[in-house]
Every structure is written in C-alpha cells, then in structure tokens.
C-alpha cells in the first residue's frame, strides 16, 4: 500500500461524491438548518425547554448552537455519518464495478484506505459545517450575549465561543465511530440500505437504552453516551471523565469496525 495509491483512490471517490446529489444536499441542509431554526425561534414566543440550554436559546447565540448540538447528536449525526460511509463499498456491489476497480493497479488495501479516508473526511466536514453554521446563526440572529453555563456561571462571549467550539469537537470521536460502523456494514452486507439504515436505527436504539438508568459500564459501552461528553466542558469546574470514557469507547468501536471491515474486504472472492 502506498500513500500515492490511497490518495488516488480518495481523489476518485471525492470526485464521485461531488457529483452526487445526496451528500451535497445533506451538507446544504446542515448549513441552512441552523439559520432556519434560529429564525423560527426568534419569531416564536416559546423556547425548547426540554433540551439543555433551551431556556436560554433566545438570550445567547452560543446557547442556540448547543441546543442544535444536543438535537443533532440524537437525530442528525447518525444519519449524516452513514449517508456516505454506508454507501461507499456497497455501491461497487450494486453497480458490479469491483472487478473493474481492482483490475487497475490499485491494491485492495489502497481501495479500502482511500474509501475510508473519504468517509471519515465527509463525516468530519459535516460536523464542521453544522458547528460553524449553528454558531454563526446564533451570533447573527440571536446575538453574542454571555452564556450561563451548567453551573450557573456567566461565560464571556470569548469563553463561550471557545467552549462551544470544543463541545462540537468533542462529538467527533463518536461521529467517526458511527462512520466506521456504517463502513463495516456497507462491506459486510453489500447493501446501501443496510449500511445507511442500520447505524441510524442502532444509534436510536442505543439512545433508548441510555434512557434506562442501567449500570455505568453498560452506559459507557453505548456509543451514543459519548455524545454527552461535552456536558462537562460547560460546567464549573470542568470535568472530563465522561468525555474520556466516551472517546475510549468510540476508539474501540472504530478500531474493531475498521479491522473487521478491512479483513472482510481482503478475504472476499471478487474475481468475476
């Protein structure tokens, strides 16, 4: 496997993605969704009280971004991360293009690494767009007022900006772990529907399991618990225990999924 080979595969996959409607539409929705939410919030009299920072979403733009983060972690991120990853390998099965692809001078490991790189890159890009648009929507439509954090301390706009950005970064490990699971399913099932649908349903099922006050070990093992790790960044004093556990769980999911996916692809009989 060479870096040049991986880069070539990644470049081809990027150009294929750029030509597709679905990934572009998802990124556009990420960019526009927060502005629509902020505008609707500005016009209505009620606030999303049942979400963390929902009560102050009309007072501080940073709170609005954190409301979007809380909602996105539940519903949006599982779909965003699997929309590309769940289809990348299965599409080759659907179109019957594996033999053509492997007949070129690219090893399977390069094909795997290139595709995985694009899937992880797309997930990171989607989170970055969502984070940037929600912060921008909050600041432009609601305003940069100080943020009252989860310990009742008012953070200055610069402190609030740094912590909000860090909170978004903290969701990346779990998002990349979900991407790895979607990649694995895309390889194993050879079906885009399973590659995209199963991670979304799985994440929602884990969210439901997390509502049960079960053993801490079980909660840590749920990948969706890692999406709560940012809470500690908005407390005084800050705490990192849940975040560290979430990152470790995410890394475990990622390594196992990528490992099994790689071995499965290496061993597959593709000779047509």
């Amino acid at each position, binding site marked *: 496997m060479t870096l040049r080979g991986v880069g070539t595969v990644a470049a081809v996959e990027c150009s294929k993605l750029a030509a597709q409607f679905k990934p572009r539409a998802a990124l556009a929705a990420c960019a526009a969704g927060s502005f629509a939410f902020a505008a609707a919030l500005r016009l209505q009299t009620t606030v999303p*009280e049942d979400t*963390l920072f929902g*009560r*102050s979403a009309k*007072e501080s733009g940073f709170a609005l971004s954190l409301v979007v983060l809380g909602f996105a972690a539940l519903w949006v991120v599982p779909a965003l991360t699997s929309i590309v990853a769940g289809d990348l390998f299965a599409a080759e099965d659907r179109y019957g293009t594996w033999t053509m692809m492997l007949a070129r001078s690219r090893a399977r490991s390069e094909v795997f690494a290139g595709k995985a790189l694009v899937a992880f890159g797309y997930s990171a890009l989607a989170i970055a767009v969502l984070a940037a648009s929600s912060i921008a929507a909050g600041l432009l439509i609601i305003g940069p007022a100080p943020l*009252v954090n*989860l*310990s*009742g*301390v*008012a953070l200055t706009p610069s402190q609030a900006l740094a912590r909000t950005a860090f909170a978004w970064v903290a969701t990346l490990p779990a998002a990349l772990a979900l991407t790895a699971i979607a990649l694995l399913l895309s390889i194993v099932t050879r079906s885009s529907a399973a590659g995209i649908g199963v991670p979304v349903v799985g994440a929602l099922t884990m969210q439901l399991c*997390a*509502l*049960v*006050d*079960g*053993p*801490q*070990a*079980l*909660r*840590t093992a749920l990948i969706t*618990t890692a999406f*709560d790790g940012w*809470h*500690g960044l*908005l*407390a*005084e004093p800050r*705490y990192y*225990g*849940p975040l560290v*556990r979430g990152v470790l769980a995410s890394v475990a999911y990622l390594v196992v999924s990528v490992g099994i996916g790689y071995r499965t692809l290496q061993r597959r009989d593709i000779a047509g």
Partner: protein
Amino acid sequence: MPANRRHRSRHGAALAIAAAGALAACGCGASPITSDRIERAVESTFANLVQLQVSRLKITPLASLNLDVIAACRRRAGGAEAGAGEWTCTVRWLGPDRRPLRDTFDVVVTTDACYTAAAEGDQLGGPTLKASDGGEVRNLLYVFEGCFDPT
C-alpha cells in the same frame, strides 16, 4: 480437540474474563447518580445563580461566601438514595441581611447526570422578575438546569 480449536477456545475464555473484569472495574450495577452528587451540584449552581440574578436585577450584590447554601435531596419514590428520576431538594441559604431562607425544588435527574430544578410555590417569584431599572428579566432561580460528574 484439535490444537488450533483448543487455542481458540482459550482465547475466547480469556476475552470473556477480560470483558467481565472490565465491567466489574467500571462499577457494574451501582448508579453514579447519588444524593450527595446532586446536592453538591444544586448547591453550587444555586449559589452562582443567586449572584448572577442579583447583578441582572441591578440590586446590591451579596457576598458569595455569605450565602452558605446547603441542599438536602431525597428521591420522591423513596427507596435507594441513588438513581435517575424525580427528586425533591430543600435548599437552605442566607439571603440579604443574613436572613435564613428555605426553598424547595422539584428536581428531575436524567441518566446522563443532568438535572432540571423547578421551584415549588412562588417564594422565589415567577418565571420573570422586574429589575430595579424597570426592565423585565428571566428569573434564573425559578427553573434552572445543570450537570454533574457521574464518574
């Protein structure tokens, strides 16, 4: 049994033991949401919000150390004093002129170690208050939320 199968079954057993050990090390079974953790969280958040509220209402500031906030929380359902669900917290604190005050909150604690505390009755005022300059501000103590470290 062939050697490679025996080797695999040993590997499986070792993995199972390691997994069981990891679960035990993580404190399997005990809820990390305890009355002590909820009380500490409510006390510090309440004290911080009182200071913030005073500054927003533009009235004479209180010295933070003089609030002496003490919270006592118990599960509404009774039983074990741990776990997510509905709690009642009684907060005793020293208000202006060191007058002892007592407020009760209905506290809903979720499994992610976050809580929402809603004041019982109207001792702390309604959802909004009037500042000394006539402006209306949200009553930060009427309903407040927070999170605490469950690890």
